[in-house]
């Protein structure tokens, strides 16, 4: 990792989706409500680096990915790319900038226009950015396909003739075609089988070594992050709660939510049969969140301060780790396994109770 200007930098990035008011509400002059999808995220990605973004539904990771690719316009904060402020870029300038960041989506079926052929789909960015057409475009695509492991003579096929893994490779080829500096990968392998996932992830890592592309890998799959990413950020309810080098975070998680997440991942280990998961509750609503730490309602280590004061994301323990928790010092050494109670699974009231509405 060089000391060159970061490829991507966000500062307090926000994206709120307003909820249209009912007539009654506007009559009563109630404040319009909004979904705080991304609520103050500051992140840096260096050239050629892989940043992983993990979280569950409602964490804001997908919205953040889309913001980075400027498929949404931020409602607050700043977004800088290679030093240049692109927060409110529009029109032709925005379209010209787009060659720098590409995105691969989660849905292998919906990502590719079913009416177009491979060379048209994969060649679209090049066509839009460089004006290449026809035979030359086909040649460019033909040269590109082997880099993602597809046969070069499938130019005229349609997407439905490919398997899920094949389709994701096509999406990847499309993203690579304009040689972007950063690729946002939004759950690229979640819809695929395990063996195919491994193939695609392997290829991603090789491509990064060959071409020095930065990745923003958005996923809920902890192992994928371990394999692909250099650093990883954990998001909960629109905010980053912890950020560190991958190995550090996975082996010694500090934030209680990170611990909860890691403890929840099922492992093919038969000895886990007797465990019960201790974290109850559900992910609360993103609408006008309450003050205080957002994980407080579910946190096993919560104290009063957590419910009133928002913990800031601050450096902790050196080596580039950031944590947003008031009790970071107290809980830092508690392993995630604590959240899996190991006793004989017995009937009776359980801490893993369901939510109250």
């Amino acid at each position: 990792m060089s000391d060159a200007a970061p490829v991507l930098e966000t500062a307090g990035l926000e994206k709120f989706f307003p909820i249209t008011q009912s007539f009654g509400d506007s009559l009563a002059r109630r404040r319009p409500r909004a979904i705080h999808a991304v609520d103050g995220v500051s992140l840096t990605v260096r050239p050629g680096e892989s940043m992983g973004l993990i979280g569950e539904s409602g964490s804001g990771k997908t919205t953040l990915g889309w913001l980075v690719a400027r498929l949404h316009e931020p409602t607050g904060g700043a977004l800088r790319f290679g030093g240049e402020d692109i927060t409110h870029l529009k029109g032709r300038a925005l379209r010209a900038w787009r060659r720098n960041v590409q995105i691969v989506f989660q849905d292998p079926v919906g990502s590719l226009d079913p009416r177009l052929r491979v060379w048209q789909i994969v060649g679209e960015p090049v066509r839009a950015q460089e004006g290449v057409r026809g035979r030359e475009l086909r040649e460019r695509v033909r040269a590109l396909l082997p880099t993602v492991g597809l046969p070069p003579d499938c130019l005229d096929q349609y997407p439905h003739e490919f398997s899920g893994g094949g389709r994701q490779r096509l999406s990847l080829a499309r993203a690579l075609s304009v040689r972007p500096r950063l690729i946002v990968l939004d759950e690229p392998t979640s819809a695929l089988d395990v063996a195919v996932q491994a193939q695609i992830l392997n290829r991603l890592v090789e491509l990064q070594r060959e071409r020095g592309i930065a990745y923003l890998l958005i996923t809920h799959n902890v192992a994928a992050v371990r394999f692909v990413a250099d650093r990883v950020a954990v998001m909960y309810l629109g905010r980053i709660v912890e950020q560190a080098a991958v190995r550090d975070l996975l082996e010694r998680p500090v934030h209680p939510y990170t611990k909860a997440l890691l403890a929840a991942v099922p492992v093919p280990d038969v000895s886990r049969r007797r465990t019960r998961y201790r974290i109850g509750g559900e992910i609360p609503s993103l609408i006008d969140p309450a003050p205080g730490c957002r994980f407080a309602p579910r946190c096993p280590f919560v104290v009063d301060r957590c419910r009133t004061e928002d913990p800031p994301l601050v450096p902790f323990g050196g080596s580039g780790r950031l944590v947003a928790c008031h009790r970071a010092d107290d809980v830092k050494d508690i392993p995630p396994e604590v959240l899996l109670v190991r006793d004989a699974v017995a009937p009776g009231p359980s801490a893993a109770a369901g939510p109250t509405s």
Partner: protein
Amino acid sequence: MAAPPPRARRADSRFGVFWRVLRANPLSLIGFILVVLIGVTALLVLFAPSLLVPYGPLQETAQRNAAPSLQHLFGTDNLGRDIYSNVMLALPLDLGIGFAIAGSALLIGGLLGLVAGFYNTPGTLLGYTSTVVLRVTDVFLSFPSLILALALTRVLGLGVGPSVLAVTITWWPFYVRLVRGEVLAVKHLPYVNAARAAGVSENRILLRHVLRNVLEPVIVYFTLDIGTVLVTYSTIAYVGVASIYPSAHPEWGAMLAFYQGTGSANVYPWLVLAPGAAVFVTVFAFSLLGDGLRDILDPRTRRAFVRGATIHDPPAEAGVAGPLAAGSLAPDAGNGSEVPVAEATG
């Protein structure tokens, strides 16, 4: 066992899929054949009438009020005019009317629907226009189409032209709704956003991605619609506001109106059965074809008919495993999708 590099097969043609679906679905095959027959007949009547039309439309023969016979396939009326010839001559006209109305409605309504569906960000001029278009559409849709068409004929006058115009005016709002709905569905698909991320301009996205994907359900609707249009037009003609009959340019609805109105139909039923059956057969044929088209064009059902399929994933390392088998998943039968992921806005 060395692994040969994966070879791509020749793309399965759309034509091949088309035939296979038709064969699997006998009713749509019948519809297709009927429509082709009707089309061919219409062309022949237009350009080579001597082949199929033995008598002129106003030509009086000696056999008055004759029941259907070999000489007069559908019988004659009180002046000996051959019903069969009249019905045949009316075919290209009625078919043309159906296509003209549905086609115009599709063009106008479709265009409006495309724009209203795609450019609807609030606060922009185009967005405002879209809202206006939608409200106007709602107003039109709140009238029963037949009543509205009849009322318009009062204003526009009698005759084929004004009647066609009247029906078209009541018809385009349906297409606005239809096309707009399809556009809204497609607009949010990832491939549209991927095109945006590639730097494609909004207009080009509309033309290249949205339009092509919206077209197919619209065509299905259009095919089915021809029948409905015909029935509506015939009803207007039946009320007597369209063309005059008998005339040099007969039309089925006018025929029905005339023979029913003069009471001859009560005594000589073939006078109305023939044109009525003609309307029915035409509408039926298009309906069957429309249903079949729906199966052909829906990518999910179509997939079941594509042979072989799939470009598969290559071997991880050379020399590791055996030759690859072409792969394709069994059709979805509630098999559950491949690992879905719960994802809301986050």
